[in-house]
């Protein structure tokens, strides 16, 4: 019996050690001096640790690493500025953790970050990990800015510490539903989702919006975020003859799904939300990517504030292209650092009120302002179509994520103004013609906004 136990224990310890070795890939930051004492007795130099959490292993590892790289770039930029906060010279450090896109692991990581007394958290990537983790951050009074969690629940829980720099699913779903039924003129729509908090959430909002716009949901099918074979559900979808298929989920499934649709003879377009809006999609869908659509909160990278520059610096530093949310996690770090500077303190309790007051912070993705819930104000949504291995912007539709049911007239006017302003900024650099188009856009409303964005886009491309 003794021998048995020893053998077993040894094996368990050995495997645990192996797991530990395998996972110990991220450099662990040097133990940070506590922000508290540092302020009490002002040291000449302090290190501020910002926590980051995203899946660094598993099917979404490429997106998680992309987020972490975006945050790392922001940290390096902040350090290059050699900021002085509360009389001390501040060095920022990123503590990157792996939540495996798993809600359970997400809370473990959150606890770890809380215990490590980080000064702020950027993350998580998925709604499914962000929501449960937000409770722990809220209890610890630790500000959390998610770059990419879009499920509306995240900011509806009443936590003072929860923020996001991306429009939520209510907003995105509404615009996708409208775009599908109006611009793409789809009457019968099939919806597939991956049963995650994100996929299911956005699919539910799209379903509501499609129905509100007089469209019909012919079937709802489900898969999971680890699947590769969709032949069975796609065959079922085919039997319902929809005009369009919406998929709520990530690129790792959306790409192969597009390929299998082509193989099974489903000719209608596939429409995806932000999760499918990646450069990987074109690779994963092989020769079947063209003609499909996706939406992404924000404006296209090309017309983002300093988007081209960001893209190039990212590529130089990490030797890989931006996958998806890197600009958002860059901005998430940016708003935290900005709030610390304004509060002149790195203590979570002191800079949190300033973070909530963020209004007009110029990030890469947008001018960021938070509403009372911590959602981003006036987030624009851009729709893209896959053409020749690239996402081509089709239309940028603005709106307020705060209140999806805001009076349509007022909202439309405001949206038009916002979008034209964004397009106008790019047009200034691009040429007078685009600028004219953008001005006309104000008169003609939302329809012309599309033209302006297109014109700006073309001008940028020509350049």
């Amino acid at each position, binding site marked *: 019996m003794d021998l048995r136990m020893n053998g077993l224990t040894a094996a368990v310890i050995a495997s645990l050690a192996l797991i530990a070795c395998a996972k110990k890939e991220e450099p662990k930051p040097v133990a940070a001096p506590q922000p508290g004492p540092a302020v009490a007795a002002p040291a000449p130099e302090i290190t501020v640790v910002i926590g980051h959490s995203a899946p660094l292993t598993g*099917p979404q590892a490429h997106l998680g690493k992309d987020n972490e790289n975006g945050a790392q770039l922001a940290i390096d930029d902040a350090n290059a500025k050699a900021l002085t906060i509360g009389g001390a010279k501040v060095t920022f450090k990123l503590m990157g953790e792996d939540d495996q896109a798993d809600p359970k692991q997400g809370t473990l990581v959150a606890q770890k970050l809380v215990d490590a007394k980080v000064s702020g958290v950027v993350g998580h990537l998925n709604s499914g990990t962000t929501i449960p983790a937000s409770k722990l951050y809220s209890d610890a009074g630790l500000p959390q800015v998610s770059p990419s969690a879009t499920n509306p629940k995240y900011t509806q829980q009443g936590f003072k510490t929860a923020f996001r720099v991306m429009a939520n699913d209510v907003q995105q779903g509404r615009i996708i539903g409208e775009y599908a039924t109006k611009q793409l003129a789809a009457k019968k729509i099939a919806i597939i989702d991956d049963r995650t908090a994100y996929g299911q959430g956005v699919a539910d909002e799209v379903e509501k919006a499609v129905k509100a716009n007089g469209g019909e949901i012919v079937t709802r099918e489900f898969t999971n975020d680890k699947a590769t074979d969709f032949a*069975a559900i796609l065959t079922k979808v085919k039997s319902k003859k929809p005009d369009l298929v919406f998929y709520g989920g990530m690129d790792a499934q959306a790409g192969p799904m597009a390929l299998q649709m082509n193989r099974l*003879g489903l000719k209608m377009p596939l429409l995806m939300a932000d999760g499918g809006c990646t450069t990987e999609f074109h690779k994963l869908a092989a*020769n079947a990517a063209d003609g499909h659509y996706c939406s992404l909160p924000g404006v296209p990278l090309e017309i983002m504030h300093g988007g081209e520059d960001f893209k190039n610096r990212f590529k130089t530093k990490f030797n890989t292209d931006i996958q998806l949310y890197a600009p958002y996690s860059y901005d998430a770090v940016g708003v935290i650092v900005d709030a610390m500077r304004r509060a002149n303190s790195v203590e979570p309790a002191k800079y949190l009120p300033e973070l909530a007051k963020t209004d007009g912070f110029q990030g890469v993705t947008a001018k960021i302002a938070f509403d009372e819930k911590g959602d981003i104000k006036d987030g624009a949504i851009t729709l893209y179509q896959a053409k020749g291995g690239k996402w081509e912007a089709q239309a940028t539709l603005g709106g307020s994520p705060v209140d999806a049911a805001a009076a349509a007239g007022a909202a439309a006017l405001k949206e038009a103004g916002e979008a034209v302003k964004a397009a106008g900024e790019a047009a200034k650099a691009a040429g007078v013609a685009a600028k004219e188009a953008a001005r006309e856009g104000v008169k003609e409303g939302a329809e012309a906004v599309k033209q302006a964005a297109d014109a700006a886009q073309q001008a940028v491309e020509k350049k």
Partner: protein
Amino acid sequence: MDIFIQQIINGLVLGSIYALVALGYTMVYGILGLINFAHGEVVMIGALMALTTIKALAGSGLPGPVIVLIGLLVAMPVCMAIGFTIERVAYRPLRYAPRLAPLITAIGVSIVLQQMAMLFWGRNYHTFPPLLPSTPRAVFGAQITDLQIMIVVLAALVMGGLMLLVNTTRLGRAMRATAENPQIAGLMGVNINQIISITFVIGSALGALAGVMVSANYSIAHYHMGFILGLKAFTAAVLGGIGNLAGAMVGGVLLGLIESLGAGYIGDLTGGFLGSHYQDVFAFFVLILVLVFRPSGIMGEKVSERA
């Protein structure tokens, strides 16, 4: 009707993929009574290794199938070496330990291989170039590609080949003897270490083949692809009767068909009460039913005839 035929074809192709991987599980189990959880990872490494070779040869002007064949021929020895090493390093020292110990080691090896592949090939998805004929052709109104037909045929051929090997050759006799009682087989002059190594090497070579076919079919390869595939194939092996080669094929195809028909019809049959997200529930329900009435699986009747 064409929708029904399409679902049957979907199930058959998916099932053959499960069967190809399940054969590797069942062969090792048949000889050693060990569940080699790392087999899914060997499949993944086979796919990625072949892909690396294929990408290196992309500009060579050789015809597509030849490039894939070269990729496979490179991947096979690599996987064989990995299979051999796994057995030598992780399983052999624990051969006479309690059954739980090698099981946990197997899970550990699986994680190590996965992380090593992540460090080596990165976190991004890799695209398998469309080198094999994958234009769909119509069969009774349903769509099937040449590649998918190849997968179904290949799974059957591999199963047949393995059965011939195990039942008619000298090596096969040694394998069966080792399966029955390693100690006695050793006393009768069978070099059991060698036989077990050979079993792992053959199983891993099949893993490489399965990996290449899977990635060619779905056009992707990723360091995480082995996990779910391994889990499903293991389920298929248990369903068919683990340790039984024909059972792996039967279990694989059955699991594929259940999943496919489950996803396709469960929603309509229950009036929308249950949806396609119940396809796994449905598949595992069938598994439990089979195991309640036939604890050793559909084909796993006589324990002495394993492998």
